[in-house]
């Protein structure tokens, strides 16, 4: 059975663009538009959610309601600041992409999200590596360096070469940080699913969390 998604975005060009990428990747768009209601009502594997629905404040409240309704949410936003990205993670979004990263990262992010696997695009990685908040999850020096390099280079191959690691190990470091963030702060079923899957996959062990 193929993957299905709902797109919530108030910009028709974005809806069309994301729809085209999904069609090419074999992902079915079951509903799309500026109204978030179908994201609650229409059964789908994931929601691609634009945080900025019209002028005014970003729709953190709608995101929170979606997460509380058990939806897996990929936030796809024009906001490039760390604070917004980290707040979305805290609220329980599966991942956070800036619109500039979409062409490369959106489809892999949807696939990972549907499988409850972590997906960290570079800009989100940068936000976690340079997280200045005092209550941020504790990262090891190596985790932080790898994440920062991922942000800087946008290439796991370059990161692997720089630190003399395999690409798979680089992936593991990046995923582990994401799981640490999922394990922190406000509980959500989507966060729990992410942690449970990471335990199954052997990305983290209980002792480390």
């Amino acid at each position, binding site marked *: 059975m193929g993957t299905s998604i709902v797109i919530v975005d108030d910009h028709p060009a974005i809806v069309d663009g994301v729809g085209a990428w999904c069609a090419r990747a074999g992902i079915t768009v079951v509903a799309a538009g500026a109204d978030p209601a179908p994201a609650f009502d229409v059964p789908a594997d994931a929601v691609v959610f634009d945080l900025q629905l019209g002028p005014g404040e970003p729709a953190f409240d709608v995101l929170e309601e979606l997460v509380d309704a058990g939806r897996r949410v990929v936030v796809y936003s024009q906001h*490039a600041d*760390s604070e917004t990205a980290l707040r979305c993670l805290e609220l329980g979004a599966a991942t956070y992409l800036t619109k*500039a990263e979409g062409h490369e990262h959106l489809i892999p992010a949807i696939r990972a999200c549907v499988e409850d696997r972590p997906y960290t695009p*570079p*800009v989100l990685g*940068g*936000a976690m*590596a*340079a*997280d*200045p908040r005092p209550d941020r999850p504790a990262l090891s020096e190596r985790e*932080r360096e790898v994440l*920062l*390099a991922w*942000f*800087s*280079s*946008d*290439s796991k*191959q*370059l990161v692997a*070469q*720089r630190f003399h690691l395999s690409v798979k190990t680089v992936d593991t470091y990046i995923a582990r940080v994401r799981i640490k963030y999922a394990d922190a702060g406000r509980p959500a079923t989507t966060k729990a699913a992410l942690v449970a899957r990471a335990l199954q996959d052997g990305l983290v062990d209980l002792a480390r969390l």
Partner: protein
Amino acid sequence: MTGGAGATSVELTVRLQRGLRVACSVIVLAILFGLNLPNLVAGRAAYEPEWVGFAGWGVLVVVAAADAVLVARHRSWEWIRLPVAAGVLAVAVEMSVALAPAALGGPPHVTLGSIGWFGVLLLPRGRELVAFLLLHLLLMLGLLVAVGRTDQLTLVAFGISAVGVTSFQLAFAIAGTALRTVARQAGQAAEEEAAARTAEDLAAVVHTDREARYAELRAVALPLLEGMAAGTAPPADPAVQRAAASAAARLRRIFAEERDGRDPLAAELAELIDIAERRGVGVQYSERGERAVPPRAAMRDLLGAAGDALHAARGSARVTLAGVPGAVVLGVVTDGVPAGFAASAPDVGVSAVEAGGTTWVEARWAPRS
């Protein structure tokens, strides 16, 4: 801005009030010793018993002395002024009652002229002072009536001395109030002048700063524009295009600096990105974390590495600037092959990694603390 001028205004008022209080103390003491004491000694027989005159005078001397001490210590009577004023009035009544009826209003009746000055001394508020003076005069008038001295001559003499002395005291109090108003106005004028001066200074600094920036701009942009107009700098020439891009970037930076408080590293990096974009290179830029501002030498090395890497870019580049604990990291990923890098600042390190046709240059400033 208002602090200094405000102090001037307050200072003026305080100095003036202090001068008035000193003057008043001197007047009271001069009257007590120079006028009252000789009259008391000469007319002591008019008091029954005799010691009451001296005792009452002694109490008044004590009050005047206490006031002099308060003046010297820069203190005031505060709330105690009202009981003390009532006490002074009681002393005056007691002394007047002890006086032989014939002496009332005459030279031995020393309190008649001097008590009003205690009012001036103790009661800085106009309404309180007027009430005090009126009450004293009414009491004395009542006493005259009580002892039966209601003949025209006595009443006229009492009226003359009462009006004469009281008008002196009231004039002194009114002059004090007027001077205080003048002082306050002078203080306000000084404040306004100081504020105007500060605003002028500020405007001059802003103007100089702006002049300096536009002078720099004129030196770069004007010759270029003139060259283009004269045909000596053809817009098709790549060198002219580069120079124009650089001047335009600087122009934008000047405008940007007036709008927001972007730090110099990010501002100069934006300029480098702009130059690359003018060459048709698509640049993706991201900024993360909280950054310290590196010293000039470190900044030059960071920007030098970024500039070289961007210069090598052919079609696309990714530029990132991150602040992490203890370091500022500037990264450039390009699809070109940059020349070698060297950093001269001691706490700047530059590394380059190449894979699959892309090169990732990272310049890191990590000050040893």
